[in-house]
C-alpha cells in the first residue's frame, strides 16, 4: 500500500509542476495580450516614434528587428549547415573533432552579454564595421550558430545510412551523394531547428546593445552599415530609461506584444513545418 501512496504523490507532484509551467507561459502571454492589444493600431505599427519614443509608432524597431533576423539567417544558416555537414558526413572521430564539438557546446553556454562585448570588440571596433546591421547580425549569428549546427547535425543523422550507401553503390561521389540524396531529406529538419534558434535571437537584447541598436532613430536604415532600432532594445529603453513610466505603459505593452507575436509566429511556422514533414518522411 505504501508503494501505491508513493505512486500517487509522485504523480501529483509531476502533474503540478507540469501545469505550473504551462500556467506561467499562459499567464505571460495572457498579460501581454490583454495589456498590449489595446495599444496596437495601424499608426502604432507604421509610424515613426515621437517624443523620445513615448508617443508615435514603432515602425523603425519592427523593420530593424526584421533586418537583423534576415542578416542573422543569411550568415548563420550557411555556416551552421556547412559545419554540420563537415562534422556528420566528412570528419572521422578524432581529438580534433572532439575539440570542435566541445567548442560548439561551450559557445552555446556563453552568456549573451559576452557575445555583445565580443561583437563590439571584433566587428564594431577591430573590423571597423561600426555599430551597424552587419555587426549586429554577425554577433547574433555567432550566438545562434551552436543551435543551428546541433539542429542540422540531428537532421543529417535522421537520414538513414542506406540512403548514402544506395547512392554510393550507384557510383555517385561523396558530394553528389550528400547533395542529391542526403541534404534534400535533411534540409527541412535543418531549417525547422534553425528557425527556432533564430526566433530566440530576434528577442535578444544584450548582443545588440553595443553592436547595432539605436536608442532613437526615427528613420529607416539605408544600408547594412546603418544603425537600426530593434524591438527588444526599444522595449528595454521604454521600460528603464523613461521618466513617465505610467503614461507610457501602453507603449511598453504594445511593443512587447509585437515582439511576442513575431517570435511566437516564427516558432509556430517552424512547428507546423516540422509536423507536416514528419508525416511525409517515413523511411
Amino acid at each position: 500500500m505504501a508503494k501505491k501512496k508513493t505512486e500517487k504523490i509522485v504523480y501529483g507532484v509531476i502533474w503540478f509542476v507540469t501545469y505550473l509551467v504551462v500556467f506561467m507561459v499562459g499567464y505571460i502571454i495572457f498579460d501581454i495580450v490583454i495589456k498590449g492589444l489595446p495599444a496596437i493600431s495601424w499608426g502604432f505599427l507604421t509610424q515613426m516614434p515621437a517624443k523620445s519614443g513615448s508617443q508615435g509608432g514603432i515602425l523603425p524597431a519592427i523593420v530593424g528587428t526584421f533586418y537583423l533576423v534576415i542578416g542573422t539567417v543569411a550568415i548563420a544558416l550557411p555556416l551552421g549547415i556547412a559545419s554540420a555537414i563537415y562534422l556528420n558526413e566528412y570528419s572521422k572521430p578524432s581529438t580534433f573533432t572532439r575539440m570542435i564539438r566541445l567548442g560548439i557546446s561551450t559557445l552555446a553556454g556563453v552568456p549573451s552579454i559576452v557575445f555583445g562585448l565580443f561583437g563590439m570588440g571584433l566587428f564594431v571596433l577591430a573590423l571597423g564595421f561600426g555599430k551597424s546591421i552587419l555587426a549586429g547580425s554577425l554577433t547574433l549569428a555567432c550566438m545562434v550558430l551552436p543551435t543551428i549546427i546541433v539542429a542540422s547535425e540531428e537532421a543529417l543523422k535522421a537520414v538513414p545510412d542506406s540512403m548514402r550507401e544506395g547512392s554510393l553503390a550507384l557510383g555517385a561521389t561523396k558530394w553528389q551523394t550528400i547533395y542529391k540524396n542526403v541534404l534534400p531529406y535533411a534540409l527541412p529538419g535543418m531549417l525547422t531547428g534553425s528557425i527556432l534558434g533564430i526566433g530566440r535571437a530576434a528577442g535578444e537584447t544584450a548582443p545588440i546593445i553595443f553592436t547595432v541598436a539605436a536608442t532613437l532613430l526615427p528613420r529607416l536604415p539605408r544600408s547594412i552599415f546603418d544603425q537600426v532600432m530593434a524591438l527588444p532594445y526599444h522595449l528595454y529603453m521604454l521600460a528603464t530609461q523613461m521618466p513617465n513610466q505610467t503614461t507610457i505603459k501602453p507603449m511598453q505593452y504594445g511593443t512587447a506584444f509585437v515582439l511576442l507575436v513575431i517570435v511566437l509566429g516564427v516558432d509556430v511556422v517552424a512547428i507546423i513545418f516540422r509536423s507536416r514533414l514528419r508525416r511525409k518522411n517515413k523511411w
Partner: protein
Amino acid sequence: MVMIGNQTPPQIDEPEIEIDVQNLDFYYGKHQALHDICMSVPKGMVTALIGPSGCGKSTFLRTLNRMNDIIGGTRVEGKIVIQSKDIYAPNIDVVMLRKRVGMVFQKPNPFPKSIFENVAYGPRIHGIKNRAQLQEIVERSLVRAAIWDEVKDRLHISGLELSGGQQQRLCIARALAVDPDILLMDEPASALDPRSTQRIEDLIAELRGDYTIVIVTHNMQQAARVSDYTAFFYEGHLIEFGKTERIFTKPNNKQTEDYITGRFG
C-alpha cells in the same frame, strides 16, 4: 537432400573469369575478418556465397565494389582483379568501379523519390540529362527488373509506396540503370515473403548470362536453386568453392558437408 538449379549451366570447361580474387585479407581495425581468400568468379554466371552468420561472406561481397571503404579503420591486403584491373590499385577510380559493379542491399532501400527518379538517379549522376534518353533507360531497366507492368502507370508515385518485394525489384532496376557488368546482391530476399522471394529468384535466373551475379544468401536451398557456383565461407576463410551441383552433392570438405546438411550454422 540435394536441390539443383533448374537450368543447367552452359557446358564450358574453362569459364571466362570476371573477378579474380588473389590472397585477399581484410581487417576491421585489428580484427582480421577475411583470411587469404583466393577465388575466381566466372563471367555471366551466378555465384552464391554461403556460410553461417559472421563468416565474412557479406564483408567479402562488399570488398568487390569497395563499399567497405566508407567504414573507417578498414584495411585490405591482396588483390582483386576485375576486367584485368586491380581494383585496389591507387589509380583506380572508385566511382567507375561502382558503376561497373552494381549492388543490391539486404533491406530494400528505395530513395524517397518517385519511381522514375529512383531509376533515373544513377544515369543522372553519370551525366545523362536528356529527358527522352532517361525515359528510355528507366523503362528498359524496369522491364529488365520485371516490375514495369506493375508500375508503368504510376512512375510518379514514391518508391516507398511499393510493397517490399516491389521495392527490391525497383532497387534492382535502379542498379541496372547504370549498365553494370557485375551485380552484387547481399541477401536480397531475406526481408521478403516467399512469393516475393520467388520473383526475385526468377529475376536472377533471367539476368544470368547478361550479368555476372554474386549473391550472399542464408538460405541453402536458394543457393542451390539460383547459382552455378557456390563458395562456402567459415570464420573468415573460404573453405570450398566450386560448381554448385558438386558442392551440394560431393563436397570435398567435412565442414562444407556439415554445413549444407544442416549439422551447424
